[in-house]
């Protein structure tokens, strides 16, 4: 589904060149739930923005769903973002001028979907996140957890194959974070591929696989069973 080989990303400013990613390789299979962890500034967000075609990379290769994306033009990249990828951001990123319904509708409109089909999908995905009674609310009138659930509904409405989440629970308290995490697990069970960046080791353990990034490189790819078992061993009272 998502395959990066020896990928690098350099940010150039007048004074310095920062290697945000170097020799970065990862292969996420269809239907996987991968958690990406790592210290601050290690390149997790950079990885996610390149994976989501929000940014180009400097070297190496990236195949998304079997397609080499390095030569695609801006319109083609927009189309892939719209059809194949769902984004969930730490800061929710709902459009403040639009109500819940209109927010979820945004990606569907860019897809040129008919009004009836849009409505059906909006209602379904809002139902899914338990917010179908808040259609007319504006983001400012919702709690953080509710806003993130709207953002998830927006990401889900277009039935993307790949969900990219950058610290989706970073701005939420534990209880709301748990709700969001359960939602992501449900979505994963229904077949979506999910890549989630998180700081929270507890959340990371709930993913199938953990990828640890340090200084722009994948240092340790722990298989979920191994990781979970060791975690369980550590936490087990016996």
């Amino acid at each position: 589904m998502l395959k990066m080989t020896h990928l690098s990303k350099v940010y150039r400013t007048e004074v310095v060149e920062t290697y945000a990613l170097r020799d970065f390789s990862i292969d996420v299979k269809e239907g996987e739930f991968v958690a990406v962890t790592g210290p601050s500034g290690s390149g997790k967000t950079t990885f996610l923005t390149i994976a989501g075609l929000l940014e180009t990379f400097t070297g190496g290769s990236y195949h998304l769903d079997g397609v080499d994306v390095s030569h695609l033009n801006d319109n083609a990249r927009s189309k892939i973002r719209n059809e194949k990828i769902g984004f969930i951001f730490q800061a929710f990123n709902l459009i403040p001028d639009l109500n819940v319904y209109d927010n979820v509708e945004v990606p569907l409109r860019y897809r040129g979907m008919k009004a009836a089909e849009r409505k059906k999908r909006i209602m379904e995905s809002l139902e899914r996140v338990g917010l179908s009674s808040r259609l007319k609310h504006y983001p400012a009138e919702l709690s953080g957890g509710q806003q993130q659930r709207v953002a998830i509904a927006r990401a889900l409405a277009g039935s993307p194959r790949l969900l990219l989440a950058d610290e989706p629970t970073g701005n939420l308290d534990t209880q709301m974070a748990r709700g969001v995490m359960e939602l992501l697990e449900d979505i994963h069970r229904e077949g979506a591929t999910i890549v989630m960046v998180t700081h929270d080791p507890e959340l990371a353990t709930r993913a199938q696989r953990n990828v640890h990034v340090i200084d722009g490189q994948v240092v340790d790819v722990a298989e979920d069973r191994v990781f979970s078992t060791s975690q369980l061993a550590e936490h087990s009272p016996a």
Partner: protein
Amino acid sequence: MQIQPILAALRRHRLATLLITLQIALACAVLSNASFLISQRISRMHAPSGVDNAQLAEVSVEGFAPDQASNVNARMLAMLRGTAGVSSAALINAVPFGDPAANAGIKLDPSEQGTHGVMHFYVGGPGAFQALGLKVVEGRAPQAGDYQPVADFTPKQAPVVITRALATSLWPQGHPLGKSIWIGSRRFRVIGVVKGLIRPAPFTSSNRPAQGSIFVPGQPGPQLVGRYLIRVATGQMDSVLERVRKAVRQMGPQVVLDEAQTASVESLHSSYFQTDRSMVALLLGVVAALLLVTALGMVGLASFWVSQRTRQIGVRRALGATQGAILRYFQTENLLIVSAGIALGVVMAFALNVLLMQYYEVPRLPLGYLPVGALALWLLGQLAVLSPALRASRVPPVVATRSV
């Protein structure tokens, strides 16, 4: 296709939207009315006079005693006809765009209540009709026996030649020849119709039609003296008038040149429309300033909104908006705002017109001027929003993940 969410977002910015809409409405109202007034003035300036403005001139003298009339006329005509470059000279009471001489309300029947408007009576001596170069379209020009003595501005009765426009308005069914026009008990019989002859001071009021001119043949004498029409060969106007001024100065202290009225019809035309030209310049200035302010307002607001929405533009890009979609968003938004402004502006344009009609002699605003204002503002809006919209379209999608 994006209209509903754009309107939804605008509802969240009511005050700014309302203010810019009002500004556009005001611009639309002023623009429609100003362009109407401007084109009205310009069309007046270009109204055909019916004569060759560049080749005709009036020479006016004063200062002599009434009993000197025949003497002055004889000496002046002799002098004018003898001046190099003058092809003909004749007595006349007024010329187009000069001082009017004889305005009178006319009737088609002495017993009629009210008049058919106030017309100007051009009283001309022998040769004046020919010197004017009027084109007869019906009937005939005045002949030798038609010239009657002038008593109180016009002959007591005389054959006259009228303009085609006047003939049509007085007798819509046609056949003006032989019909009579009355001023009080004075009767004038129509013997000919000319293509056109503008009155001396046209466009002063609606009951004084610009083509409301009646040519009356009159005998030179104490009441037709001192004003002369000359026809001058092409390109010689200035030198001829210079020679004439010099000659009049040599005629003695009883004959004094009226400087203001001694001029070519062309320069009389130019002075006559001086205020209209200033008015046009002023209105153009107002229109330009208003368009500039409106454009700046739209650029300013669009720029502000683009900066304010940078993050959501990035989010939209992340969710699949192409650069073109972002560009169209801001263009459509501007189109909607300008259209609302125009809708309101149309109402305000008519209100302004009604106001102008009450205080000035301004006709009703023709509907055709509304699209002029509307089109200008639509174009202006699209132009104004282009640069901010392009800037918006270049916001990179990565803005969505990098919090500011």
